[in-house]
């Protein structure tokens, strides 16, 4: 007994000191000391409640790394990732600190969750390190006038706005006049859901649509029957919904149980994009829309290289991609490699300059939309102003991009089928 105590305390003490000596991050695959590597920090939630999509987001960047390394890497050197796990905002700050000040990272790719991105990018900015956001969508991330922060993905507000625009566009398909169409908005109440929901509301008001109900709830809940009964009483034609995966599944199962029917349901990302959703509710998923990052079934004419990505993903991870989160991270990281190649060094100043010069037209990337970053003086400094979300629809339990037309890989099917 005493012995165990001694071991325990010794272990605890050793680990305390080991923080100092540990090389950190079990990360990057190859660790043999090849002299010439380019090290880049990656910061995602690998544990905790956001781990599932965090991992998916990261996988895109990982594939981009492998692709680039096969092509000869950066400046002839192989790229290596130093991984950091940030389950919450406090850890994000600590890990960003570790990556920058202990591992000496000059570039960090992150972070799927908006809260983590918020907190970690602040550390990067203070240290003059590039923060390359390939997943978090909340608007305020790029509203702080940061110089070293770049985001390749569209903003949360554009998700909400796009959803309303799309709702208006499909009014004829469900047989109502746009001005008579009744819209309900439901969203989970964290930063992500609220940003999307509030913007959808504002856009609906701008467009003069009839907003009959707006409900917010905590994604941690274990029952949504009350939300659904509320919506059912409002009886909307179109539902715009924002939720994470658990509550998406719960919502649609309970919607069926309680016989809640809408003519068109428009999800906005996260849960609505995930294969798990389709697996959980089966054919009930069909005809639900998803306003989101470009999905895996986007027209390859529009999203160049998307098929190659899917193939690589399957080869690397032994399963098909779970959602577009990997795809956007893949495309985002590829842009970063080009920027760094052009900058010619790890110097953040040079990378920043090169990034600001980027101007990729639409249809040239694996996500379809092009890339141009807003300058440091802009309201949305560092935001890719060419990024916008697409609308996909679940067909035979697969997401197929249906809107806008140039990206479409399939036809819009409406209205929703009533529950049997």
């Amino acid at each position, binding site marked *: 007994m005493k012995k165990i105590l001694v071991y325990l305390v010794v272990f605890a003490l050793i680990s305390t000191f080991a923080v100092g000596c*540990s090389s950190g991050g079990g990360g990057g695959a190859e660790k043999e000391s090849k002299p010439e590597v380019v090290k880049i920090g990656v910061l995602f939630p690998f544990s905790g409640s956001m781990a599932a999509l965090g991992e998916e987001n990261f996988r895109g960047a990982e594939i981009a790394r492998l692709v680039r390394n096969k092509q000869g890497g950066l400046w002839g050197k192989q790229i290596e990732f130093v991984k*950091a796990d940030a389950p919450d905002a406090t850890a994000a700050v600590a890990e960003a600190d570790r990556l920058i000040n202990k591992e000496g990272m000059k570039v960090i790719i992150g972070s799927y969750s908006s*809260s983590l991105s918020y907190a970690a990018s602040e550390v990067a900015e203070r240290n003059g390190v590039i923060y390359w956001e390939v997943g978090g969508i909340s608007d305020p991330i790029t509203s702080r006038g940061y110089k070293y922060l770049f985001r390749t993905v569209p903003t949360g507000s554009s998700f909400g706005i796009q959803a309303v625009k799309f709702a208006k566009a499909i009014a004829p398909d469900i047989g109502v006049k746009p001005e008579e169409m009744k819209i309900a908005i439901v969203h989970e109440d964290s930063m992500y859901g609220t940003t999307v929901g509030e913007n959808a509301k504002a856009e609906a008001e701008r467009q003069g649509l009839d907003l009959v109900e707006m409900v917010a709830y905590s994604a941690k809940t274990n029952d949504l029957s009350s939300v659904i009964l509320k919506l059912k009483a409002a009886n909307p034609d179109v539902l715009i919904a924002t939720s994470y995966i658990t509550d998406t599944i719960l919502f649609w199962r309970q919607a069926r149980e309680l016989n809640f029917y809408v003519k068109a349901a428009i999800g906005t990302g996260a849960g609505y994009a995930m294969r798990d959703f389709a697996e959980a509710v089966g054919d009930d998923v069909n005809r639900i829309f998803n306003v989101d990052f470009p999905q895996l079934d986007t027209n390859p004419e529009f999203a160049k290289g998307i098929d190659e990505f899917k193939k690589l993903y399957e080869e690397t991870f032994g399963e098909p991609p779970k959602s577009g989160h990997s795809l956007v991270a893949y495309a985002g990281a590829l842009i970063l490699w080009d920027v760094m190649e052009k900058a010619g060094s790890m110097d953040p100043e040079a990378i920043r300059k090169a990034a600001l010069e980027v101007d990729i037209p639409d249809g040239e990337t694996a996500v379809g939309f092009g890339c141009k970053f807003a300058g440091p003086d802009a309201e949305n400094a560092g935001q890719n102003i060419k990024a916008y979300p697409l609308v996909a629809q679940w067909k035979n339990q697969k997401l197929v991009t249906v809107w806008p037309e140039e990206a479409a890989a399939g036809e819009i099917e409406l209205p929703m089928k009533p529950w049997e």
Partner: protein
Amino acid sequence: MKTETNKETLISPQLYVPVLFFVLLFLIPLVIKNPFYIHNMILIFFYAALSSAWNIIGGFAGQISLGHAAFFGIGAYTSAILYVDFGISPWIGMLAGGVLAMLVAAGISYPCFKLRGPFFTLSTIAFGEVVRLLVSYFRDITRGAVGLLVPFKPGIGNLMFRGKIPYYYFALILMILVVVVSKKISVSRMGFYLTSLREDEEGAQAIGINTSLYKLWAVMISAFFAGIAGVFYAQYILFIEPESVFSSAMSTQFALMSIIGGMGTVAGPVVGSFILTPLSEFLRSTLGGSFQGLHFAIYGVLLIIVVILMPQGIVVWFKDKYEALLERLPNEKRREVKS
């Protein structure tokens, strides 16, 4: 139970050893400049301060609160809202946050003090959850679950700095402050009352101690410091959201450090934080990326082992050695008095 300890002066090792230790901590940034290590030290001080604050009610008085994140969060939100919406300096916000946390603590704890043991703990969990849910609900004031971003405008008046060194000293001073207050309480009459009511509440009441009053004092002091630590957190991380500052994981953490270090002792929480904070950071940075979750599992196993094998906390294990060391140190006059 010792109530009247020998008066300690600077030449007694009981005092000068900890003082030397703190002075040493003050000097560290002169040698170590790497912000990563400094950041870890800041976290250590931060959690030591919080855990010590928790220990005043949880350890001394034995009222196990698992809802302390509420007070921490109230401090963080008060000052952040005052600063962001009204431009009031966090220095004033700190006082406001601490006082508000204290008042809320008094208001919600007082009725709950009649609950004993596990029932009190359950009520604190419920209160913690209610506060979290309400903060999420009143979006107009708190921004709800979206979280509150504190814009970075460095300056001493804003309690925001470019480098980490000022944060280091702030956290260090905060920790020392809480430790000194804890020490004062532990040797005071109040400390004696708290310990006796922890051991036997009816007995304490029987000999005329107004137990509710002293518990109230303890929880108010505890919440005040938790609130101040919350303000520090907001100014350091610059982003707060209900999910993180009001989380039950946060509440548990304060208590864990104290338990593992040695509950009800002044040094316990500090020792706990000096071991656990680097340990969890270390486990996360070495295991986290490649093995999801494994680091927390190890953390849990450690916790169980400590609880089963060393219920008094690690500090007890060091105590004899530490006291032996003190005996050997220069001790001038004190020795005769003692013997």
